[in-house]
């Protein structure tokens, strides 16, 4: 069966090379195709073909590797979009909580008023807070929309994976803008009243935001490239 399995390995290698998206999803797809191919080989073998021609026939039956891979592009794009959106929804409240803790520890008087009216609010508040709020609003809505469009409610929504990849990328960019706005606030506070800042909670929140910014950027780019495969 060596010649046959070499043919199958080479074929699946071609399929894998043409699959974009998360590594685990790709491995899973290739494993499923391998098991299907082996079923086809067995069927041809029991119909009387020797191992190598049976493998060739099975590969012919499955068709061109790039076409097989293209069939999975929409699913992989949906997968990528869903992954980014769920990561943003899961981490968002945590990062918000970390910054609220950091602000309270830095003696910023959070109260039910506009942020720039808080006691000790950073000078950039009047610009950075509205930007962050708008970005977060976009992120929350586009992320929830993406989750709906790539999950069970998709049955009732006329939204395909291409649109889901777009909204997930928007959510990612929104999170990046929100994080960047928070860093502007932090920088303005560092220049105006550095002594107020509580170093440890600020460092934790900043590390969390920086990590999310980096991952959101990577996720958004991946969504856009997955989207490009669906043109």
């Amino acid at each position, binding site marked *: 069966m060596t010649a046959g399995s070499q043919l199958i390995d080479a074929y699946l290698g071609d399929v894998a090379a043409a699959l974009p998206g998360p590594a685990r999803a790709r491995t899973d*797809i290739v*494993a*499923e195709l391998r*098991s*299907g191919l082996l079923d086809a080989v067995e069927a041809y073998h029991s119909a009387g073909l020797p191992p190598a021609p049976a493998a060739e026939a099975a590969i012919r039956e*499955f068709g061109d590797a790039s076409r097989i891979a293209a*069939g*999975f592009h929409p699913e992989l794009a949906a997968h990528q979009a869903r992954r980014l959106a769920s990561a943003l929804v899961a981490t968002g409240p945590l990062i918000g909580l970390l910054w609220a803790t950091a602000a309270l520890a830095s003696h910023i008087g959070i109260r039910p008023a506009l942020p720039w009216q808080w006691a000790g609010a950073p000078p950039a508040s009047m610009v950075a807070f509205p930007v962050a709020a708008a970005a977060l609003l976009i992120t929350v809505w586009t992320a929830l929309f993406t989750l709906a469009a790539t999950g*069970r409610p998709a*049955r009732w929504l006329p939204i395909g994976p291409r649109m889901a990849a777009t909204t997930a990328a928007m959510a990612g960019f929104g999170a990046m803008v929100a994080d960047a706005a928070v860093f502007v606030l932090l920088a303005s506070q560092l220049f105006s009243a550095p002594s107020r800042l509580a170093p440890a909670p600020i460092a934790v929140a900043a590390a969390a935001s920086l990590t999310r910014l980096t991952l959101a950027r990577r996720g958004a780019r991946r969504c856009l490239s997955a989207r490009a495969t669906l043109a």
Partner: protein
Amino acid sequence: MSAETLKGHLDGMLLASLEDGPRHGYAIMEMLRVGSSGQFNLPTGTVYPALRRLERAGLVRGTWSEVGGRRRRVYELTPGGHRVLETERGAWQTFSAAVTALLSPAAKPVSP
């Protein structure tokens, strides 16, 4: 019959192929081929991604398990899948009954 012609009915047929019990991808393709007397020879590149899509929509559940000495991804209908299958079946029966009535030569309405 071309894959394009079948596209609108693919989901219903895939769900129907799982009605008797769980099956893996190749067995589903075999079932569609044999069940349609060779009329529907759906390409692999259509069936496997469609199964993933149905899984994402919560209509089927795919799990890896050992079948016949080999690891296979086996699909089964979820309760939601059963419901959608019933809806698709009812819609198809209404539609096909209407088309049959209109296409059958004996049933042409007499024009005044």
